[in-house]
C-alpha cells in the first residue's frame, strides 16, 4: 500500500513538472531566440548606430537601425503616460474612496467594458474622433489610442493596491481632521505607493508593447523622424510588424534587433521600479 502511494505521488509530481515545462518552454524559446537573433543584428552595426540610424531601403543591402521607430515609441509612450496616468489615478481614487456614488459605479463599469474592447476597435474609434478631423494620423492620436488601452488596465491595478490599505489608517486620517481628499492623497496613496507605481508601470509597459491601437492612428514612416506631435510617428512595434512580413532578410534582421530593444526597455523599467521604490511595511 505504502509503495503504491509513493508511486502515485512520484507519478503525480512528474506529470506536474512535465506540464510546467511544456508551459514555460515556448516562452523561454521566444526570449532566447529574440536575445540571440536580436543581439546578432545589433552587433553587426553597433548599438548606438542601431538605435539612431534609419533602416535600409527594401531590396538594398546592409542593416541600418531603428532610429525613427525608437523616437516614435518614446514619444508615444511618454504622451500616453501623460494622458493616461492622471486619469487612471483619478478614476481609481474615485472608485475606491467614493464607492457608493453613482459616478463611481458608472466609471467602474465603463472601465471594465473598455478592458474587453479589442484594441483594434479603439484604434478605429480614435481614427474617427481625431485622425479624420485632423486629416492626418499623429502622435497625439496614437497616444490617445494607447492611453485608452492603458487606463482600464492601470485603473484595475491601482484599485487593487488602494483597496489593500487597511481601514485603520483611513480612520486615523479622518480622526486628525483630514478631508476625504487628504486621506486619499496623503494616507492611502502614500501607503500604497509601491503598488501605485507598479500599476502605473504595468500600464506604461502595456502601452509600450501595443501594436493594434497604432494601426490607424500613428501612421508614421519607418524612415522619417517625427517632426511634431500633430504629425505622424512610427513605433517599434509597427516596425517589427511590417519588417517581419517582408521577404528581405536584412529587414527581418532589423525586426529581430528591434524586438530585443523592446524587451530590454521592459526589463529596464521593471528593474528600476524594483530597486528604487521602497515598500511601506505596515
Amino acid at each position, binding site marked *: 500500500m505504502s509503495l503504491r502511494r509513493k508511486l502515485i505521488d512520484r507519478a503525480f509530481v512528474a506529470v506536474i513538472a512535465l506540464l510546467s515545462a511544456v508551459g514555460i518552454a515556448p516562452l523561454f524559446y521566444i526570449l532566447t531566440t529574440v536575445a540571440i537573433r536580436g543581439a546578432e543584428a545589433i552587433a553587426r552595426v553597433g548599438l548606438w548606430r542601431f538605435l539612431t540610424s534609419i533602416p535600409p531601403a527594401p531590396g538594398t543591402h546592409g542593416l541600418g537601425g531603428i532610429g525613427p521607430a525608437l523616437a516614435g515609441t518614446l514619444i508615444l509612450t511618454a504622451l500616453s503616460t501623460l494622458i493616461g496616468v492622471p486619469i487612471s489615478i483619478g478614476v481609481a481614487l474615485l472608485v475606491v474612496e467614493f464607492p*457608493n456614488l453613482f459616478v463611481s459605479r458608472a466609471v467602474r463599469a465603463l472601465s471594465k467594458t473598455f478592458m474587453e474592447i479589442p484594441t483594434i476597435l479603439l484604434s478605429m474609434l480614435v481614427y474617427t474622433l481625431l485622425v479624420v478631423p485632423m486629416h492626418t494620423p499623429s502622435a497625439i492620436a496614437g497616444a490617445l489610442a494607447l492611453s485608452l488601452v492603458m487606463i482600464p488596465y492601470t485603473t484595475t491595478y491601482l484599485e487593487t493596491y488602494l483597496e489593500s490599505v487597511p481601514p*485603520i489608517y483611513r480612520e*486615523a486620517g479622518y*480622526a*486628525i*481632521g483630514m478631508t476625504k481628499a487628504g486621506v486619499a492623497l496623503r494616507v492611502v496613496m*502614500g501607503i500604497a*505607493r509601491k503598488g501605485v507605481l507598479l500599476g502605473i508601470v504595468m500600464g506604461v509597459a502595456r502601452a509600450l508593447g501595443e501594436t493594434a491601437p497604432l494601426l490607424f492612428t500613428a501612421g508614421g514612416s519607418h524612415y522619417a523622424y517625427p517632426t511634431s506631435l500633430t504629425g505622424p510617428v512610427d513605433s517599434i512595434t509597427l516596425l517589427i510588424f511590417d519588417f517581419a512580413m517582408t521577404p528581405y532578410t536584412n529587414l527581418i534582421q532589423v525586426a529581430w534587433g528591434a524586438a530585443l530593444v523592446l524587451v530590454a526597455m521592459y526589463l529596464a523599467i521593471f528593474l528600476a521600479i524594483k530597486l528604487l521604490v521602497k515598500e511601506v*511595511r505596515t
Partner: protein
Amino acid sequence: MTRYAIEIEDLHVYIGSKHILKGVNLRIPQSAITVILGPSGSGKSTLLRTINRLIELNPEARVRGRVRVLGIDVYSADPYEVRRMIGMVFQVPNPFPHMSIFDNVAIAAKINGVARKREELEKVVRWALEKAMLWDEVKDRLRDPPTKLSGGQQQRLCLARAIAMRPRVLLLDEPTANIDVYNTVKIENALKSLVNELGITIVLVTHMPQQALRIGDYIAVMYDGRIVEFGPVDQVSLNPRSEITRRLLRGEIG
C-alpha cells in the same frame, strides 16, 4: 456645579438592520476621565464613534438623536471641524507607516493649524511626545519609520499624534487592549496628567473593570446598547445600583 463637555440625548444607531445603540442618554463632565465600561458587543465603540462622527465612515450606519460637544451640535456642524477639536486613539495602534515618527505627530499639528513653521512644528512635536511619555525613547530616531517601534511605543505615538492637535476632547477606544503592562501604565499616567495639566476631557472605552477603577473619575456602564449606570467611580464601584454593574465588576460578564 459640574460642567459637561459632551451631552448625548436619546441617541440611536443602526448599522444595516441592526439596532446597536438603543436610546443612549449621557452627560460627560468636563476636564475629567470618563470610562465607558461594558462587555464586548455592548456598543461602546459605536458610541465613541458617534461623538466625532467617525461612525459615518461606515456607509450602512444611521444615527438618530443628539450629540453636543462643548456646546456644538455635532450632527449639524461640519464633520471635519468637529473632528479637529476631538483627538482619538484606537484599539490597534495605527501610526502612518509611510511617514517618519516626527511626521506622524507633525501632520496632526499642521492640519489643525497648531503650527506651520519648522521651529514651531519641532516644538509642538517635542511637547506632544513628552506628554505621551515617548520623547526620551524616540528623540534620537525621529526620522525612523514608526514600524520600528514596539506596539506599545506605537500606541504612545498615536497618543502624541492626537495630543498634537491640541484637542479639547480625547477619545480612546480600548487603547491598551493589545499592549503590555509597562506601556499600559505609561499611557494611563499620561492620560491623568493631560486632564490635570491641560484640562482635557477624556472618554475611554474599556471592557476591563480594573482599568476603569484605576483611572476613571466617572464610570458609565454600558450593556446591550444602553447606559445602565453612570456616576463617580467610587459610587459605582462601592455602591453599584445595577445588577449588570455588579456582575461586570465581579468578572462574571465581560
